[in-house]
């Protein structure tokens, strides 16, 4: 965690209605470089809506999101042009989908999947692109020999790790994760979480991780935000909220974990 005073991402009064249906209401927080915020809640809590609002995939009904660009300027994301937003997505941000197939090109080789962002920002040397892709496969513990295989023939855990490599290759500062371990076997989950934890620390990533799994929140995040029915119920230091939950719903959530 750096000591930079200016936050990286600031949400102010974010609200989203789908017609009359509430997605989320009045969510505000600041996220700093190198900080991981977990957003936990059950289905319908609004956590995924929040993630999509933060990553500009949805436009808010009210409120705004401000982001500090690499050049130091803080911009209201709603004011960015489409080209700027896509560039941001490709270079400064990552988005890890729960279903890796949504975040990968399934019919294109793993190497091309990882190299695509590099090519999109102008890399034109095949050898270097392939070399960087290889390094990243190593980092996410995918066998180098699989670099020319398409993710169609990968297991779920491998696909997810590939998705992570694809997102991190341009060294983003902020990564959005939507249930990154969802649907994976327990041992695969453990491996993935360990990988994420290591990468987040090593690269000083800031991240917003949406999860319904409190163990994931505890392992990955510094701060946690509990949501229910579109509202923020409680927010604070992760270990504090999980060990000393104050609100009734937080207490319910924490007590609902089955011991292994």
């Amino acid at each position, binding site marked *: 965690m750096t000591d930079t005073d200016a936050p990286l991402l600031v949400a102010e009064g974010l609200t989203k209605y789908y017609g009359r249906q509430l997605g989320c209401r009045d969510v505000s927080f600041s996220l700093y470089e190198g900080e991981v915020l977990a957003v936990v809640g059950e289905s319908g809590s609004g956590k995924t809506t929040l993630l999509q609002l933060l990553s500009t995939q949805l436009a808010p009904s009210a409120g705004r999101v401000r982001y500090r660009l690499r050049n130091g300027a803080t911009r209201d994301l709603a004011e960015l042009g489409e080209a700027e937003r896509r560039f941001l997505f490709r270079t400064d941000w990552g988005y890890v989908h729960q279903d890796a197939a949504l975040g990968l090109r399934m019919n294109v080789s793993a190497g091309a999947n990882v190299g695509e962002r590099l090519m999109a920002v102008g890399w034109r040397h095949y050898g270097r692109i392939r070399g960087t892709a290889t390094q990243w496969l190593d980092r996410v513990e995918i066998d180098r020999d699989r670099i020319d295989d398409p993710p169609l023939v990968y297991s779920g855990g491998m696909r997810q790790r590939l998705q992570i490599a694809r997102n991190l290759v341009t060294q983003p500062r902020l990564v959005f994760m939507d249930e990154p371990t969802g649907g994976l076997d327990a041992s695969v989950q453990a491996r993935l979480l360990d990988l994420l*934890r290591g990468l987040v620390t090593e690269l000083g990533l800031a991240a917003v991780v949406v999860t319904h799994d409190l163990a994931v929140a505890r392992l990955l995040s510094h701060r946690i935000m509990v949501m229910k029915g579109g509202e923020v119920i409680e927010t604070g230091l992760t270990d*504090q909220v999980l060990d000393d939950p104050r609100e009734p719903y937080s*207490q319910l959530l924490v007590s609902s974990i089955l011991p292994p």
Partner: protein
Amino acid sequence: MSPLLQLTGVSKTFTMHLQDGIRLPVVAGVAFAVAAGECVALAGPSGAGKSSVLKMIFGNYRCDAGEILVRHGDERIDVARADPRRILKLRRTTIGYVSQFLRAVPRVPAIDVVSEPLLAAGTAREAARTRAGELLARLNVPQRLWGLPPATFSGGEQQRINIARGFLPDLPILLLDEPTASLDSTNRAVVMDLINEKKARGAAIASIVHDDDVRARTADRVIDIARFSAALR
């Protein structure tokens, strides 16, 4: 010179919403201070709130009233009111905590569990690992275990990993919750030496120790938490 750690009027009550909102008072009006080079033992019967007090100092538990002042450089920061970022910073630079049980993260080898706080503070990986190894050796953890994740270790081994992790960085304030509970006499002696060495270097230590011998050899003062215990009334 103000004490490194000072508690005034610290109170905590648990409200159990799932049990019809019954309130469980834990402590009320806790007040004590720990100066640099001092070790203060918190004593009292089970359930008096000793662990809760340590957890409040670490920021793991919230406190409902009072101040927990920690000296951080030239400032004094109130942990009870600090925002999450501040608390995380304090944990990296100022306050260390050795909990009663190691929370084993899957897949991370013992040597990395121990060196992690040093890494977070900016030490290079190899240097951190070397120092971690030295401390583990001192605590009689055999080298063949260093590369293994501690989840499968015995209670005593896990506790020694926990202790190494807490003692390795040079933090001015150290909170110890039953550091010698699962240890044999040899390792108890090592831990006592470690505590006294920290004191000699100017650390302020607050500990919970049930073993009278250990307490006698490490603590300069004993605070009876039962005095402040709202739970036992």
